[in-house]
Protein backbone atom coordinates (compact mmCIF):
# COMPACT_ATOMS: atom_id res chain seq x y z
CA UNK A 1 0.00 0.00 0.00
CA UNK A 2 2.82 2.30 0.89
CA UNK A 3 4.57 1.47 -2.38
CA UNK A 4 1.39 2.26 -4.31
CA UNK A 5 0.91 5.65 -2.71
CA UNK A 6 4.59 6.42 -3.04
CA UNK A 7 4.68 5.67 -6.73
CA UNK A 8 1.46 7.61 -7.34
CA UNK A 9 2.99 10.59 -5.56
CA UNK A 10 6.23 10.27 -7.52
CA UNK A 11 4.46 9.99 -10.87
CA UNK A 12 2.25 12.96 -10.15
CA UNK A 13 5.21 15.06 -9.02
CA UNK A 14 7.18 14.00 -12.12
CA UNK A 15 4.33 15.05 -14.42
CA UNK A 16 4.00 18.41 -12.70
CA UNK A 17 7.74 19.08 -12.76
CA UNK A 18 8.21 17.97 -16.35
CA UNK A 19 5.24 19.76 -17.85
CA UNK A 20 5.79 22.99 -15.96
CA UNK A 21 9.46 23.04 -16.96
CA UNK A 22 8.42 22.59 -20.58
CA UNK A 23 5.79 25.31 -20.29
CA UNK A 24 8.26 27.72 -18.75
CA UNK A 25 11.00 27.15 -21.31
CA UNK A 26 8.60 27.44 -24.23
CA UNK A 27 6.75 30.54 -23.06
CA UNK A 28 9.78 32.39 -21.72
CA UNK A 29 11.69 31.87 -24.93
CA UNK A 30 14.70 30.00 -23.65
CA UNK A 31 16.74 29.11 -26.70
CA UNK A 32 20.43 28.54 -27.13
CA UNK A 33 22.78 30.13 -29.59
CA UNK A 34 21.45 33.65 -29.37
CA UNK A 35 23.45 36.56 -30.72
CA UNK A 36 23.11 39.69 -28.59
CA UNK A 37 24.21 43.11 -29.82
CA UNK A 38 23.11 45.90 -27.49
CA UNK A 39 19.38 45.60 -27.00
CA UNK A 40 19.02 43.38 -30.05
CA UNK A 41 18.88 39.61 -29.94
CA UNK A 42 18.89 37.22 -32.86
CA UNK A 43 18.76 33.46 -33.14
CA UNK A 44 20.64 32.86 -36.38
CA UNK A 45 20.46 29.09 -36.04
CA UNK A 46 16.66 29.10 -35.99
CA UNK A 47 16.65 29.33 -39.75
CA UNK A 48 18.98 26.42 -40.34
CA UNK A 49 18.97 22.67 -39.87
CA UNK A 50 21.09 22.77 -36.72
CA UNK A 51 18.33 24.47 -34.75
CA UNK A 52 18.21 23.30 -31.14
CA UNK A 53 15.14 21.42 -29.85
CA UNK A 54 14.09 24.24 -27.54
CA UNK A 55 14.00 26.81 -30.34
CA UNK A 56 12.16 24.29 -32.48
CA UNK A 57 9.51 23.84 -29.79
CA UNK A 58 9.14 27.61 -29.33
CA UNK A 59 8.67 28.14 -33.06
CA UNK A 60 6.19 25.27 -33.26
CA UNK A 61 4.16 26.87 -30.51
CA UNK A 62 4.20 30.42 -31.86
CA UNK A 63 3.65 29.40 -35.47
CA UNK A 64 6.14 31.84 -36.90
CA UNK A 65 8.34 31.20 -39.90
CA UNK A 66 11.96 32.17 -39.16
CA UNK A 67 14.14 33.61 -41.89
CA UNK A 68 16.38 31.05 -43.52
CA UNK A 69 20.05 31.44 -42.62
CA UNK A 70 21.05 32.11 -46.21
CA UNK A 71 18.47 34.86 -46.59
CA UNK A 72 19.22 36.94 -43.56
CA UNK A 73 18.87 37.33 -39.85
CA UNK A 74 16.16 38.87 -37.67
CA UNK A 75 17.05 40.88 -34.57
CA UNK A 76 14.39 41.30 -31.89
CA UNK A 77 14.35 44.10 -29.33
CA UNK A 78 11.94 44.34 -26.41
CA UNK A 79 13.81 46.94 -24.38
CA UNK A 80 15.93 49.99 -25.06
CA UNK A 81 19.67 50.07 -24.43
CA UNK A 82 19.16 50.91 -20.77
CA UNK A 83 16.83 47.97 -20.27
CA UNK A 84 13.53 49.86 -20.15
CA UNK A 85 10.75 47.82 -21.71
CA UNK A 86 9.20 49.28 -24.85
CA UNK A 87 6.10 51.15 -23.80
CA UNK A 88 3.70 52.56 -26.36
CA UNK A 89 3.14 55.66 -24.26
CA UNK A 90 6.81 56.65 -24.37
CA UNK A 91 8.74 57.77 -27.40
CA UNK A 92 11.95 56.01 -28.34
CA UNK A 93 14.62 57.03 -30.81
CA UNK A 94 16.57 54.56 -32.88
CA UNK A 95 19.69 56.04 -34.36
CA UNK A 96 23.02 55.13 -35.80
CA UNK A 97 24.06 52.59 -38.36
CA UNK A 98 23.08 49.11 -39.31
CA UNK A 99 25.47 46.28 -40.20
CA UNK A 100 26.16 45.78 -43.86
CA UNK A 101 23.19 44.25 -45.57
CA UNK A 102 21.71 44.46 -49.02
CA UNK A 103 18.33 45.40 -47.65
CA UNK A 104 16.84 45.69 -44.22
CA UNK A 105 13.42 46.26 -42.69
CA UNK A 106 12.36 47.48 -39.28
CA UNK A 107 8.90 46.45 -38.12
CA UNK A 108 6.87 47.12 -35.00
CA UNK A 109 4.72 44.33 -33.57
CA UNK A 110 2.73 43.76 -30.44
CA UNK A 111 3.77 41.03 -28.01
CA UNK A 112 2.05 38.32 -30.06
CA UNK A 113 3.65 39.25 -33.35
CA UNK A 114 0.71 41.11 -34.85
CA UNK A 115 1.04 44.47 -36.51
CA UNK A 116 -0.28 47.47 -34.61
CA UNK A 117 -3.18 49.42 -36.09
CA UNK A 118 -2.57 53.11 -36.80
CA UNK A 119 -4.12 55.83 -38.89
CA UNK A 120 -1.40 56.12 -41.51
CA UNK A 121 -1.07 52.37 -42.00
CA UNK A 122 2.64 52.39 -41.34
CA UNK A 123 4.06 49.34 -39.64
CA UNK A 124 7.73 49.72 -40.34
CA UNK A 125 10.51 51.11 -42.45
CA UNK A 126 12.72 49.60 -45.08
CA UNK A 127 16.25 50.67 -45.84
CA UNK A 128 15.06 52.01 -49.18
CA UNK A 129 12.45 54.46 -47.93
CA UNK A 130 14.23 55.90 -44.93
CA UNK A 131 15.17 59.58 -44.70
CA UNK A 132 18.88 59.86 -43.88
CA UNK A 133 21.26 62.68 -43.18
CA UNK A 134 24.31 63.42 -45.33
CA UNK A 135 26.48 60.96 -43.45
CA UNK A 136 24.12 58.09 -44.17
CA UNK A 137 22.97 57.98 -40.58
CA UNK A 138 19.33 57.87 -39.67
CA UNK A 139 17.05 58.40 -36.71
CA UNK A 140 13.66 56.78 -36.33
CA UNK A 141 11.14 58.12 -33.82
CA UNK A 142 8.97 55.38 -32.36
CA UNK A 143 6.11 56.82 -30.40
CA UNK A 144 2.41 57.49 -30.14
CA UNK A 145 2.49 61.04 -31.55
CA UNK A 146 3.44 62.16 -35.04
CA UNK A 147 6.98 63.47 -35.46
CA UNK A 148 8.91 65.00 -38.30
CA UNK A 149 11.29 62.75 -40.15
CA UNK A 150 10.98 59.01 -39.74
CA UNK A 151 8.03 58.39 -37.47
CA UNK A 152 7.00 54.87 -36.61
CA UNK A 153 3.67 54.95 -34.77
CA UNK A 154 3.43 52.66 -31.78
CA UNK A 155 -0.30 53.12 -31.40
CA UNK A 156 -0.03 53.61 -27.65
CA UNK A 157 -0.09 49.87 -26.91
CA UNK A 158 1.40 48.67 -23.68
CA UNK A 159 4.36 46.64 -24.88
CA UNK A 160 5.73 46.37 -28.35
CA UNK A 161 8.53 44.53 -30.09
CA UNK A 162 10.85 45.90 -32.74
CA UNK A 163 12.26 43.50 -35.31
CA UNK A 164 15.19 44.48 -37.50
CA UNK A 165 15.58 42.06 -40.39
CA UNK A 166 18.84 42.17 -42.31
CA UNK A 167 18.68 40.47 -45.66
CA UNK A 168 21.75 39.14 -47.41
CA UNK A 169 24.12 39.98 -44.59
CA UNK A 170 27.27 38.29 -43.31
CA UNK A 171 26.15 38.77 -39.68
CA UNK A 172 25.39 35.59 -37.83
CA UNK A 173 26.19 33.28 -40.68
CA UNK A 174 29.94 33.08 -40.31
CA UNK A 175 30.32 33.42 -36.57
CA UNK A 176 28.47 34.25 -33.41
CA UNK A 177 30.50 37.15 -32.09
CA UNK A 178 28.81 40.33 -31.01
CA UNK A 179 31.59 42.64 -32.18
CA UNK A 180 30.52 42.39 -35.76
CA UNK A 181 27.90 44.93 -36.38
CA UNK A 182 27.09 48.47 -35.42
CA UNK A 183 23.45 48.03 -34.47
CA UNK A 184 21.25 51.11 -34.05
CA UNK A 185 21.12 52.49 -30.53
CA UNK A 186 17.73 52.77 -28.83
CA UNK A 187 17.15 55.57 -26.33
CA UNK A 188 13.98 56.38 -24.44
CA UNK A 189 12.75 59.96 -24.61
CA UNK A 190 9.76 61.57 -22.97
CA UNK A 191 6.84 59.54 -21.69
CA UNK A 192 3.28 60.83 -21.67
Amino acid at each position, binding site marked *: MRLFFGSCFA*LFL*AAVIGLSATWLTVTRGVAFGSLKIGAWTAWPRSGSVDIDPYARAIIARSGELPIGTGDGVAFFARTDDAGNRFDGRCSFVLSGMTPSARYWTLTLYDQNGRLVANTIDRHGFTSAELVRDVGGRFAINVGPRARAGNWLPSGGIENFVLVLRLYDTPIGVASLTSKEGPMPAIVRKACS
Partner: protein
Amino acid sequence: MIRLSFWILGALLLGGIVHLSTVLAMPQAATQDAYSRLARLAPVNRLVPLAAPSAQDTIMPFMDPAFAVADC
Protein backbone atom coordinates in the same frame (compact mmCIF):
# COMPACT_ATOMS: atom_id res chain seq x y z
CA MET B 1 12.22 10.43 5.74
CA ILE B 2 14.92 8.77 3.64
CA ARG B 3 12.20 6.85 1.86
CA LEU B 4 10.41 10.09 0.96
CA SER B 5 13.58 11.69 -0.35
CA PHE B 6 14.12 8.68 -2.60
CA TRP B 7 10.62 9.11 -4.00
CA ILE B 8 11.27 12.81 -4.60
CA LEU B 9 14.59 12.08 -6.27
CA GLY B 10 12.87 9.55 -8.52
CA ALA B 11 10.16 12.08 -9.32
CA LEU B 12 12.78 14.68 -10.24
CA LEU B 13 14.53 12.29 -12.61
CA LEU B 14 11.25 11.23 -14.16
CA GLY B 15 10.21 14.89 -14.42
CA GLY B 16 13.40 15.60 -16.35
CA ILE B 17 12.57 12.81 -18.76
CA VAL B 18 9.01 14.13 -19.14
CA HIS B 19 10.36 17.61 -19.81
CA LEU B 20 12.83 16.51 -22.47
CA SER B 21 10.37 14.22 -24.20
CA THR B 22 7.61 16.87 -24.30
CA VAL B 23 10.04 19.45 -25.74
CA LEU B 24 11.12 16.97 -28.40
CA ALA B 25 7.54 15.95 -29.14
CA MET B 26 6.17 19.47 -29.44
CA PRO B 27 7.00 20.11 -33.11
CA GLN B 28 5.24 16.88 -34.11
CA ALA B 29 2.25 17.54 -31.90
CA ALA B 30 1.78 21.19 -32.85
CA THR B 31 -1.37 21.96 -34.83
CA GLN B 32 -0.81 25.71 -35.20
CA ASP B 33 2.77 25.82 -36.42
CA ALA B 34 3.72 27.60 -39.62
CA TYR B 35 3.64 24.48 -41.75
CA SER B 36 0.12 23.46 -40.82
CA ARG B 37 -1.12 27.05 -41.11
CA LEU B 38 0.24 27.19 -44.65
CA ALA B 39 -0.87 23.68 -45.57
CA ARG B 40 -4.45 24.72 -44.96
CA LEU B 41 -4.18 27.63 -47.40
CA ALA B 42 -2.48 26.14 -50.39
CA PRO B 43 -3.15 23.07 -52.53
CA VAL B 44 -0.21 20.80 -53.29
CA ASN B 45 2.17 21.95 -56.04
CA ARG B 46 0.47 25.29 -56.65
CA LEU B 47 1.98 28.64 -55.84
CA VAL B 48 -0.42 30.71 -53.79
CA PRO B 49 0.30 34.32 -52.82
CA LEU B 50 -0.39 34.89 -49.15
CA ALA B 51 -2.37 37.83 -47.88
CA ALA B 52 -0.13 40.59 -46.56
CA PRO B 53 -0.23 40.88 -42.77
CA SER B 54 -2.41 43.64 -41.39
CA ALA B 55 -3.27 44.80 -37.92
CA GLN B 56 -6.50 42.82 -38.03
CA ASP B 57 -5.26 39.58 -39.44
CA THR B 58 -1.96 37.86 -39.98
CA ILE B 59 -1.40 34.32 -41.16
CA MET B 60 1.73 33.83 -39.09
CA PRO B 61 3.07 36.00 -36.30
CA PHE B 62 6.09 38.20 -37.05
CA MET B 63 5.55 38.33 -40.82
CA ASP B 64 7.49 41.04 -42.60
CA PRO B 65 4.99 43.48 -44.17
CA ALA B 66 7.62 44.76 -46.60
CA PHE B 67 7.62 41.46 -48.47
CA ALA B 68 5.03 39.69 -50.55
CA VAL B 69 5.04 36.04 -49.60
CA ALA B 70 3.91 33.13 -51.71
CA ASP B 71 3.72 29.54 -50.64
CA CYS B 72 3.93 26.33 -52.62
